[in-house]
């Protein structure tokens, strides 16, 4: 994980609230030109790439006449200069109209909203699982530093981080789905769910979720548990912990009540950085598990030169990344005592 920006700097004794307010405002305002700039770059790159949507859709089919391609280009103004096209896109974008997909003419927003829940569900569930596993591991590893628990969990956790993700997904499917038959091999639900009772419908959904969540969590636990561990170690070295121990408080109380509280605070700052992943998903997992999510939507759109969808997905994920970084930086500033209480010495 990358350390958040700490460019708040010193502001010569101005009140804290004022600093924060100006900072927040400045950052928020910056998001808009950033999105415009990035969307422009994305647009240009897409149009410069060799190939075009009409060929992708109608290419090399003897039954399809050239007029189909010409009509397509005409309808979507693809023969006009790139800048003109960008401006028209911009004009619709400010009304939050992303246009229609080139592949199936569905409105881009409708396509995104039909896929978003699947990704949110999977990523959200995985995040919860990751938190439930990584934090305890990190805390205990810090408390029992360099003891066997720490050493073993370090290696285990890194294994998840070191595997090619599609291999991990395939192995999970192969062993638990194919060989043992415990879980469905792929998909989000069975086609016959509508003929099932609600109880079985939920069970069907959950059963389909187990393997993808397992795979996603396995790769995500590493980073968070390491971060928790180092944060915890740092806190355990602080003076006030020493004081608490000197006062005779039980080790357990020291750890749980005092240390954890302060160690977990920085974690909140990095939570902001997980925001983009919640929405963009991992298209490798989505491809292998046949999960109908946003990751695949964006990837397939790029392959098919589906400009409107690419721009829609790209802008949304850019916005979320910027927003996530913004949140993370704010939280970091809020939480970092050096900035809170002013610089000393």
């Amino acid at each position, binding site marked *: 994980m990358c*350390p958040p920006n700490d460019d708040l700097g010193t502001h010569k004794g101005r009140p804290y609230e004022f600093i924060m307010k100006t900072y927040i405002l400045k950052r928020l305002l910056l998001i808009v030109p950033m999105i415009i700039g990035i969307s422009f770059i994305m647009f240009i790159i897409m149009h410069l790439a060799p190939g075009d949507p009409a060929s992708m859709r109608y290419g090399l089919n003897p039954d399809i006449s050239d007029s189909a391609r010409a009509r397509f280009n005409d309808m979507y103004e693809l023969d006009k200069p790139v800048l003109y096209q960008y401006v028209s896109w911009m004009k619709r974008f400010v009304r939050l109209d992303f246009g229609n997909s080139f592949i199936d003419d569905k409105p881009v927003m409708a396509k995104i909203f039909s896929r978003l829940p699947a990704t949110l569900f999977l990523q959200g569930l995985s995040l919860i699982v990751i938190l439930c596993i990584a934090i305890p591991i990190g805390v205990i590893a810090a408390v029992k530093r360099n003891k066997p628990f720490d050493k073993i969990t370090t290696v285990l956790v890194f294994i998840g981080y070191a595997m090619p993700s599609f291999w991990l997904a395939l192995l999970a499917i192969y062993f638990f789905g194919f060989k043992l038959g415990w879980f469905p091999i792929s998909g989000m639900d069975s086609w016959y769910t509508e003929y099932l009772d609600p109880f079985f419908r939920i069970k069907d959904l959950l059963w389909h979720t187990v393997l993808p969540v397992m795979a996603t969590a396995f790769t995500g636990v590493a980073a968070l548990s390491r971060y928790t561990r180092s944060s915890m170690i740092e806190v355990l070295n602080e003076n006030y912990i020493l004081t608490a121990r000197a006062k005779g408080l039980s080790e357990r109380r020291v750890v749980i009540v005092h240390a954890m509280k302060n160690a977990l605070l920085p974690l909140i700052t990095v939570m902001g950085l997980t925001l983009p992943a919640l929405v963009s998903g991992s298209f490798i997992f989505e491809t292998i598990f046949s999960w109908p999510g946003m990751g695949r939507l964006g990837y397939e759109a790029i392959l098919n030169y589906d400009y409107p969808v690419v721009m829609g997905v790209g802008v949304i994920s850019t916005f979320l990344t910027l927003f996530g970084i913004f949140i993370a930086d704010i939280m970091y500033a809020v939480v970092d005592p050096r900035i809170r209480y002013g610089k000393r010495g």
Partner: protein
Amino acid sequence: MGAHNNYRAGTRPAPTNLILGKMNKRLIFGIMVIFIMAAVAVFAPLLATHDPVGIDLSVEARLQPPSFEHLFGTDNLGRDVFSRMVYGARISLSVGFIAVFISLVIGIFLGGISGYFGKLLDILISRFVEVMYCFPTFFLIMLVITFLGPSIINVMVVIGLTSWPGLCRIVRSQFLTLRERDFVLSAKVQGVSDLRIIFRHILPNSMAPIYVSATLSVGSAILIESALSFLGLGVQMPTPSWGNILTSGKNYIDYAWWLTFFPGIAILITVLGFNLVGEGLREKLDPRLKT
């Protein structure tokens, strides 16, 4: 001044003093793994038992399980997997190293001038870094490769181009901190040129987190290469890389386990090695973690 005593102008702190102080088993394991894999890559021609691109299309030669003749078995075109793995080490490791090298060059340069000179340059570069950060990385990778065509060089360049922002931020914050130090101020007073200050004074003292990040990045570069192979955008056949051996082998996962097992394990152990070394370095070099 506590731990900051280690910074001295004009010289490099001897990293060996810091590391050899307390070696732990994981760090040793990691270093050993990297060493072994690098040796395999370098000595590939000596180690390979067969021609890595030699096709044998006879029925007996295809999809054979591991045996004495073919240590890791053969693939669907009758090629010896062990030899391909050994040459694949060359490709995968060099992709890792060179990609990270590229990102180091860009990251250190931009982070350095941004952190040192500050003000407008810093703002511009920081915004640029944020833009790069927000850019959907896969979008960038796929487009560049579609543009330039998949080849080893392009893969290296593309991975390097997408991993420098993180490094840049680290370098920048290091420089921001260090430029206020006495030894820098004294060098300035003495009239030392900015360039010299950056490279001879500040940079050597800020290498610690750079080492850590670079080591971890090699691991992730190897993983990105395998992900690109999964998409068909990585190193192209018949040149073997661990990523593309794994990708073409995945179609036989229930029939020929050796086609996915060996490249998968190789990537796993190698990336694990880099991660353990990186983490180990971080433990040693980060003053905040010292007991």
